[in-house]
């Protein structure tokens, strides 16, 4: 096995060994086969649950692994959505232009994140102030987009449309002979699923690599990491950019999913949601984050049948209970309990075998 592949299992991620990867492969294949079993509506919903995973994973590595609490991931989410909207509405879906729009809506947030990150980490902004700056940026962007209702706010042929949001951007289209492939329904689902798998595996390698270990060292004690000779600010900047590009990926996929993006997808309530998912699952582990995000977005949708306010109340309760009684996160706490119990049992059996001769 090449060395980089061996990094899939490591100290910074839960789950290892053949049993874990067998279950993982089984889950991926089963999920991939779902379009053959369930109806189109269910597939649309499933796509929606998976779309949010990227932003949550990004926040997990920024907050859980590197110890930087960013409240503003939705700024990059929204920026990506609007970028895709503006570019794709202007250039249309001929040729590879929608893919160009997709690429640009990941690149632009990356550049903005690099700028914001440089401003913060190289300017000595630390701890909770990072949260304040990122949240302020999100709110600035939200407020700005909310006031673009007038006809003068038009970029090319794309109208920003203020609080009502932009809609009717073309879906991803791949030219393929006579009938181009249009990514919607099952094909969009498969695209998103494939991206989830690639990003998840990629992040496992990243967090278990030297880079990931340094991030954790910085989380545990930034001053000590600096004294040991690591360029703390550069690492923080890097992880912030990676996490923000992931938020942007969620944003652009969300826009593709619903052909719709609004300023309220960046506001205070929207900004709270990724924090809830990540904190509830266990911010220090990407597997826990992934599972919690899919589970909680599913749960929100189930609860929202009675009205959105019920879903948010339950999210609040879950978050409160987790912070008070399982600060490491639900999935991580359960996982650790199970592991400890298994270890205890193993120790007990070992003792029995050892003590048998003497008895």
């Amino acid at each position, binding site marked *: 096995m090449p060395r980089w592949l061996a990094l899939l299992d490591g100290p910074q991620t839960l789950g290892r060994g053949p049993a874990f990867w067998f279950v993982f492969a089984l889950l991926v294949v089963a999920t991939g086969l779902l379009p053959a079993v369930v109806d189109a509506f269910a597939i649309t919903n499933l796509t929606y649950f998976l779309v949010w995973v990227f932003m949550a994973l990004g926040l997990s590595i920024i907050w859980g692994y590197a110890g930087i609490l960013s409240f503003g991931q939705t700024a990059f989410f929204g920026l990506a959505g609007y970028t895709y909207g503006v570019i794709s509405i202007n250039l249309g879906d001929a040729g590879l232009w929608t893919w160009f729009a997709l690429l640009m809506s990941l690149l632009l947030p990356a550049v903005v994140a690099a700028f914001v990150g440089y401003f913060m980490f190289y300017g000595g902004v630390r701890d909770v102030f990072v949260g304040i*700056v990122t949240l302020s*940026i999100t709110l600035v962007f939200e407020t*700005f987009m909310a006031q673009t209702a007038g006809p003068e706010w038009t970029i090319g042929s794309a109208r920003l449309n203020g609080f009502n949001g932009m809609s009717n951007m073309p879906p991803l289209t791949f030219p393929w002979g006579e009938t181009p492939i249009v990514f919607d329904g099952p094909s969009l689902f498969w695209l998103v699923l494939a991206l989830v798998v690639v990003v998840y595996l990629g992040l496992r390698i990243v967090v278990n690599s030297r880079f990931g270990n340094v991030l954790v060292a910085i989380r545990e004690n930034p001053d000590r990491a600096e004294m040991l000779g690591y360029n703390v600010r550069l690492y923080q900047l890097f992880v912030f950019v990676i996490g923000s590009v992931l938020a942007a990926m969620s944003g652009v996929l969300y826009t593709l999913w619903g052909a719709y993006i609004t300023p309220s997808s960046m506001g205070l309530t929207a900004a709270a949601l990724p924090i809830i998912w990540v904190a509830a699952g266990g911010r220090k582990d990407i597997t826990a984050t992934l599972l919690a995000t899919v589970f909680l977005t599913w749960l929100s949708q189930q609860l929202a049948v009675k009205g959105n306010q019920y879903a948010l109340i339950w999210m609040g*309760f879950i978050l409160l209970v987790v*912070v008070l009684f399982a600060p490491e996160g639900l999935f991580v706490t359960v996982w650790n309990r199970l592991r400890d119990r298994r270890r205890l049992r193993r120790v007990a059996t070992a003792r029995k075998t050892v003590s048998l001769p003497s008895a």
Partner: protein
Amino acid sequence: MTFLVEAYAFFYQLADSFAFLVLCGLGLAIIFGMMGVINLAHGEFIMCGAYVTVLSARAGLPLPFAMLCGTFAAGLVGLILEFLIIRRLYHRLFDSIVATWALSLIATQGMLIVAGPSIEGLKTPFGSFELGEYSFSVYRALLPLIALLLLGALYWLFVHTRFGVYSRATIQDANMARALGANTGRIYSQTFTLGAALAGLTGALYAPTITAVPTMGQAFIVQSFVTVVVSGADVMLGLAPSAAVLAFIQSLLTKSYGQLIGQIGLLLTVIIVVRVLPKGISGWVLQRNGGR
């Protein structure tokens, strides 16, 4: 004459903005400055104060008493929440932020379910006065005075009372204060209650001027945070200048470009202040005077 009227109109706007920022920031600043807890449910304490005021005034209580009810209700809720939740989260900064955010979600959405999207408001008392082509609300013109009075009262509380001395000792060095016999747990609890009650009072004071809606906390909390971050940890030193500076920026931008741009201006100011003066105005003043 028209120039004078214009000038007064601007001053009125400025003072109104100043009062709003001071009143918003007070409760949050005390809890943050004294306890280091960032209370993201601050806006919901304001909402609580406003709702109780509106409901008890409509039930027939005279307005001042209704406002007292709102203040006490928010203080009581603060006392209970401190006992049940906040107490467990001291020294866990991130967790206290997340937990108060959860509380804020629960309170907002709970109020939406219980009381619906909005409740019938109150009439603003005292009417209005005319100046040139403008009409000014007497009540809103009084709010800056109330804000200044409150600042004075808090100064007295923290400098001249037993509670004030104990609480300042606790901020400076909690362990030493405990060794000298101060019950720091009780002081934290009292401080949180005071902060919550002040938020309730803010809600009560603004109840007659706005329509109370469950999400009103969000409108308040941004302004509160902006003021507190610019002010820094020392409430007495930083809050008034911070509110004055921000009010000036906001009213200037609002007058020229509209309310949303005013809001954006405030947020941009905060981003710059965090970068340039991370400890806010009060931290800067203390540093210049050779303090800690």
